[in-house]
């Protein structure tokens, strides 16, 4: 299973990949540092799941999410963000994200996410 992990923080990407590997050890991981890279990797790799941060340089997660959903309306994008405002949550779900998870992600949250995705 291909999984795209997008965050400008190396720590955030490593933390997420570490807990993801607990449940999906064979996952093929692709990493991006901003929304623009996320869009390019999404086009080339067509990952089954995208974990997407919101606050990033070059292109933020909101913009990347819009483009990814235009490319594939069935894309499974999980927003993982420190922005826990209700309006931010509502907005990303409206654009098409499957769900939004507050940072930092841990095993419990990852399990809940994976249980809701379609593989």
């Amino acid at each position, binding site marked *: 299973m291909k999984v795209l992990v997008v965050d400008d923080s190396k720590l955030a990407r490593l933390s997420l990949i570490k807990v993801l590997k607990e449940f999906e050890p064979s996952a093929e991981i692709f990493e991006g540092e901003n929304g623009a890279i996320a869009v390019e990797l999404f086009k080339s790799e067509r990952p089954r799941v995208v974990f997407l941060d919101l*606050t*990033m340089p070059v292109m933020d997660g909101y913009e990347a999410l819009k483009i990814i959903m235009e490319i594939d309306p069935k894309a499974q994008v999980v927003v993982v963000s420190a*922005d*826990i*405002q209700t309006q931010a949550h509502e907005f990303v779900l409206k654009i098409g994200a499957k769900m939004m998870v507050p940072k930092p992600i841990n095993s419990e949250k990852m399990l809940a996410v994976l249980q809701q995705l379609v593989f």
Partner: protein
Amino acid sequence: MQISEFSEDHLDVLKELMNIAMGNATASIADLLQAFGTMHIPYISVSDMDGLKLFIEETIPSDPRYYVTKQLFGGEFGGEFIFVMTNESAFNLGNYLYDVSEPNSADILDAVIELTNILSATIISRLTEELNTKVQFFVPSTEVIDGNHLIGVDETLNYHKIIIVSTEMIFQNQNISGHIFILTKDEMIERLRTLIDQKLEELYS
């Protein structure tokens, strides 16, 4: 390793933890204002006082008066939380929270203190929680300061080498914004690095 040799990993960890802390704080202020706030990528740098002065001059919009709140915190890790609002933003905050067109100076000051209390408590508590430590807060003070004196003599004497953690809180529709600085120095910088090293060890274990 010298203080100035904070590795890219150290800075990345600090930036990410600050991002998480700022997310919590923005949500709390959004609840207070019943509005949507914009989050920005935190800026982290190691500097001296001259560097801080220059950074503040370049970062904070020009205004004849500022509301500056300072709060010390201490423990295994410690430093100073500083929140700077322009006079215009503080007026808009008082206007918005008290729902009056011309808030008086006491209302404005009260509104600024309330907002800063939420900000500092949320940001520092969350930041230190993520670093697996605890801190105590000291009583904050808010001053209305002339634009030319944002960095006073006290700070110049107290700080030599510092870490600047800076970010901006913006509630665009309400025309309310403010700049947040967390300054830490000397042995606290070493302790911060130790705490970050522990965090990295956890990650790579």
